């Protein structure tokens, strides 16, 4: 999948302002950014739902716009809203969506199992919880066994437990050899799930790489924090490799670019009570790129 310099402007608003990226087969690719960054519009252009003002998209060797009926069976799209038929049960939703692709009804059983909804097969869609509905929606996007799957904010508005359940589903899909492109505004989640991420803001991609490389590229210090009182500021500053020490009412925080000697020194002193080691996250990457705090 290849996206080359796509742009979409609505009047003065540059929703997508020159976005390019490629996604390899089998890759789990995340498009991150706050609301209004242009993630959804980018995804809609890639899926072939919108025509870009300029630029080109190639999916599996074909153009998605104008609507390409040959390409459609090979891509699966989960939409932001829970788009279901009225009054149908979970199984019936899957059967109906499957039939649009000529998939036999039996496939519904397999999909229900994949997303862990086997026991909810006969429950009407509107009686499912938010997380269950989201999983059903993903199952509907996968029912025809597409090669390329697009998920638009699948974990938005879910409670932490439901989010974690969904992560398992997403990993299971990746294990089936699918290429996944997904958007999220949870940076921590993308860090865990994605092979590669693109960080978007104001219609542009600010950075794109594996989460680990992006974080390493920051050259941000590791921060080791301890319970206040287990060590004095002067003692901590004496350790090898310490950049900076800070103390507040509850804890003492040591910033270092060489965590190994600092940690072993702490271990020698037996000062490991309440120890927390915090490395940089994608949020720090975002902060570094935009100069502002990340707010989903």
């Amino acid at each position, binding site marked *: 999948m290849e996206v080359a310099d796509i742009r979409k402007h609505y009047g003065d608003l540059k929703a997508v302002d020159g976005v390019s990226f490629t996604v390899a087969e089998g890759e789990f690719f995340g498009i991150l950014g706050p609301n209004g960054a242009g993630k959804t519009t980018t995804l809609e252009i890639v*899926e*072939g*739902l919108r025509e870009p003002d300029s630029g080109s998209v190639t999916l599996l060797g074909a153009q998605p716009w104008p*609507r390409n*009926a*040959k390409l*459609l*069976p090979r*891509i699966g*799209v989960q*939409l*932001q*809203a*829970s*788009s*279901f*038929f*009225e*009054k*149908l049960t979970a199984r*019936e939703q899957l*059967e*109906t*969506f499957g*039939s*649009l*692709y*000529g998939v*036999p*009804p039996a496939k519904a059983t397999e999909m229900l199992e994949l997303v862990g909804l086997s026991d909810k097969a006969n429950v*009407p869609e509107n009686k499912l919880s938010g997380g269950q509905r989201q999983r059903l929606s993903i199952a*509907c996007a996968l029912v*025809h066994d597409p090669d390329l799957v697009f998920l638009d904010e699948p974990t938005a508005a879910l409670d932490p437990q439901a989010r974690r359940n969904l992560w398992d589903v997403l990993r299971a899909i990746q294990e089936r050899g699918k290429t996944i492109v997904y958007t999220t505004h949870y940076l921590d989640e993308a860090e865990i799930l994605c092979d590669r991420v693109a960080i978007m803001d104001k219609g542009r991609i600010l950075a794109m790489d594996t989460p680990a490389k992006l974080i390493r590229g920051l050259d941000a210090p590791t921060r080791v924090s301890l319970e206040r009182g287990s060590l004095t500021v002067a003692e901590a500053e004496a350790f090898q490799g310490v950049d900076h020490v800070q103390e507040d009412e509850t804890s003492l925080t040591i910033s270092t670019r060489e965590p190994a000697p600092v940690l072993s020194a702490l271990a020698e002193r037996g000062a490991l009570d309440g120890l927390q080691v915090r490395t940089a996250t994608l949020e720090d990457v975002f902060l570094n790129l935009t100069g502002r705090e990340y707010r989903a």
Partner: protein
Amino acid sequence: MTAFKSLSAAMVKGFLRDKMALFFAFLFPLMFLVVFGLLFGDAGGDKTKIAVVGEGPVVTALDQTGVLEFEKFDNPDQARQKVNDGDLPAAVVVGDGRVDLTFAASDQVKAQTVVGIVSGVVDKLNVAATNTPPAFEFAAKPVEDASLKPIQYLTPGILSWAVAISGVFGSALTLVSWRKKQVLRRIRLAPVGPTAVLSSRVLVSVGTALLQGLVFVAVALTPPFGLKLTGQWWLAIPLLILGTMAFFAIGMLVGAFCKTEEAASGAANLITMPMAFLSGTFFPVESTPPWLQAVSNAFPLRHMNDGMLDVLVRGKGAEALLLPSAVLIGFTLVVGFIAAKVFRWED
């Protein structure tokens, strides 16, 4: 299973599980049929109530005409006062060899009817009293005329109206809710054409219309209503189908313009309610002013109604279908074309 079949099945299930939709398609129009059917059931003229003073063969003969109802008074002045007050149209005071009739001049029609009846009865008794044969033999007998009993025009009218509301509401609400919930977008991302989607929805509407026809006619045929079908009632089937298509097209047009279900059902009401009243759903169009009859010709419901009346209760044949069918097909094509032009997949 093909997309067409499974979409139809999905919509039938959705419809059968939607109690509100079922209510508005079947029970709601049926309520009108029951209420109006029973309300107008023994219509055919109310008896006229008059004040009567006295007894005798004249009063007995008046009673036997079967069109007058009496309010008895002992005092002629009391009876006349009732007429003066405008409570009753006439007062008959029967004295010894004398009949006095006082009538209100305000309601000429009613008053002249009473005058005619009373003078007729008195003349007849006078002739009989003379014991001479009458100079002219007078014979009167009733015939069934072309005007219809209420149930005869209510059934086709309410059936057409029911088809109209489920057609317009069904297509408009489906379109709006599918667009809002992005089901349309989801379908667009699947390799199915709009024809399969549209035709499956039309099929469900047509099925609903035929079922409505069956239910309403079956109810109207039961004794309390006493509908009598004449001629080739099955000619109603093509009308039900064509009518559904025309109203479906109107619903598509409504659905193209409305963003929410609330707006769509408001707009659908705005179209179907006046159309129902002006098209002879609840009363015969013939009894309305000529300008209104002219206006009603603009509505597809009026023509569907006329066709239904002709084939269900007026005993007419296939030739009665020509004009209504042409109008309904024309409506379907024109409105359908406009609806297709303004159709939007998403907001």
